[in-house]
């Protein structure tokens, strides 16, 4: 294992127009760590997640993934914007799961899982096919590979989306409220898949409202509000014994 953190954020700031969404985030995520981010909506937690794979560019501060600066290159003390191709290459190593799944509706579940390794990495179809089938089995959908997303339930779609991200063999997985758009009885299956993934040693950053998951699976917990990290620590401590007033107020509403 490398000694540097998987993700390192240093005073990350981001504004949309006049609205300052992130006001200087400092964070470190070790390899194999599962970090959960909680907070009220509008607190900037999804934006921070999207900065990690450069879906949003950072206005100020620095972000590293696996020791590499995200979206920029440092040369002679100056930052150079990366070319689109290099940004894409960085993203290959980072899997992302969205709140609204964003599966490709014109492809079957199997095609969804296979398309990126085949088209982006140029891997052999037969190799990818085997891996894709294994991944679908792993998320409990081994027999649904031929189904189009519209024929799957929300929970099934989200599990296909997780398999799709894993097919690129990423070293880091980002989850943006993966269960928020699901019917309550479908949440459990998705969380179970994520728990298994965490146990297998994947580094994960999870923006979530599932306190149970954060407590049971998370190695650390961050509470964000108003674009800053208000409180961070081991999940049990933060949840059962929050130090900050704002954390207390938030937790009293969601627990």
């Amino acid at each position, binding site marked *: 294992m490398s000694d540097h953190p998987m993700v390192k954020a240093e005073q990350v700031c981001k504004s949309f127009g006049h609205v300052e969404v992130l006001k200087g985030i400092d964070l470190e995520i070790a390899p194999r760590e599962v970090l959960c981010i909680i907070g009220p909506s509008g607190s900037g937690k999804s934006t921070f997640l999207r900065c990690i*794979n450069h*879906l949003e560019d950072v206005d100020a501060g620095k972000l590293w993934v696996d020791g590499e600066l995200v979206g920029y290159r440092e040369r002679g003390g100056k930052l150079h914007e990366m070319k*689109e*191709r290099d940004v*894409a*290459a960085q*993203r*290959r190593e*980072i*899997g*992302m799961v*969205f709140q*609204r799944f*964003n*599966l*490709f*509706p*014109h*492809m*079957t579940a*199997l*095609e969804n899982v*296979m*398309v*990126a390794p*085949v*088209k*982006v*990495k140029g891997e052999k*179809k*037969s190799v*990818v*096919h085997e891996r*894709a*089938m294994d991944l679908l089995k792993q998320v409990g959908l081994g*027999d*649904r*590979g*031929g*189904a*189009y*997303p*519209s*024929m799957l339930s929300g929970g099934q779609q989200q599990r296909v*989306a997780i398999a*799709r*991200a894993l097919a*690129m063999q990423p070293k880091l997985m980002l989850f943006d409220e993966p269960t928020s758009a699901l019917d309550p009885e479908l949440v459990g299956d998705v969380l179970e898949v994520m728990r298994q993934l965490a146990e297998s040693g994947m580094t994960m950053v999870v923006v979530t409202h599932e306190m149970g998951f954060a407590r049971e699976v998370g190695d650390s917990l961050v509470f964000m509000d108003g674009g800053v990290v208000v409180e961070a620590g081991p999940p049990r401590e933060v949840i059962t014994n929050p130090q900050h007033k704002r954390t207390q107020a938030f937790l009293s509403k969601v627990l």
Partner: protein
Amino acid sequence: MTEPTGQARPEPIKAVPVRHPGRWVGIVVVAILTAMFLHMLLTNDAFQWQFMFDNMFSEPVLKGAWTTLWVTVVAMILGVVIGVIIAVMRLSPNPVISSAAFAYTWFFRAVPRVVLLVLFGNLGILYAEVGFGLPFGEQLLGLFGLEGSGQIFGVDANKILSGLVAGLLGLSLSEGAYMGEIVRAGIQSIDPGQAEAAQALGMGRGLTMQRIVLPQAMRVIVPPTGNETIAMLKDTALLAFVPVTNELFFQLQAIGSRTFQVFPMLVAACLWYLSMTSVLMVGQYFLEKRFARGVQGRAKEKLLKATVPTGAGIE
């Protein structure tokens, strides 16, 4: 489903249906109008049905119909290609490229097709010769004190801009502007989350467009493209202004004016365009079905066994 205990299933409802007297009145009115129309078709001598059928399949008309058909197909293919390029350019973050696409659309939508066709037909006045070589070759070489035009090869403009090429060029350039807007609407109808998911998987802009966005946009693009194809089929009649005479409507009209039987030939033109359009509509139906994949209600689940060996549609 659980049966309610101790109760038999209720009888299906047997009610007296609502009467629709308006429908009966409508049927009578439509029937009378149809009968009057048919009566007119059969009794008015000016239609000259026999003459029409004898002439609407004559050699020059068939040749004209063939020209109309292939010009439609080629102009539409070129138009769609130009349209996709213009749409992608228009949505480019590069302001120069996107303004260029806007200017193209602005010009070719503003100028009527007839005017455009006459213009292209007369392009030979502007250029005696079409050449390929250094841009501003003569002036550039002059700067270095050299003689010559910098031209690699050239051809007589009147030769390449023969009627058909000029007509085809005018029609496809004009079509490209309309198709550009249709394709742009299709691209913009796709949830941005799709492109985002593709980016998150490491796909670049080109691959995202080609694999993810455009295939989905096709569902929105195909129906108006069907419209455009039908409009194009009819606009080939404008080729006469280039002038191209080897075209369906011109040929039918020529027979009409030569024989002083103008009206039957106009009816023949209607029938020709009607039947050609019907064929195109069948094609559109199959295209729409093809691009409805994954849309609920239309898609049939592929059997897993069928997809396993091929790894599905990722070509």
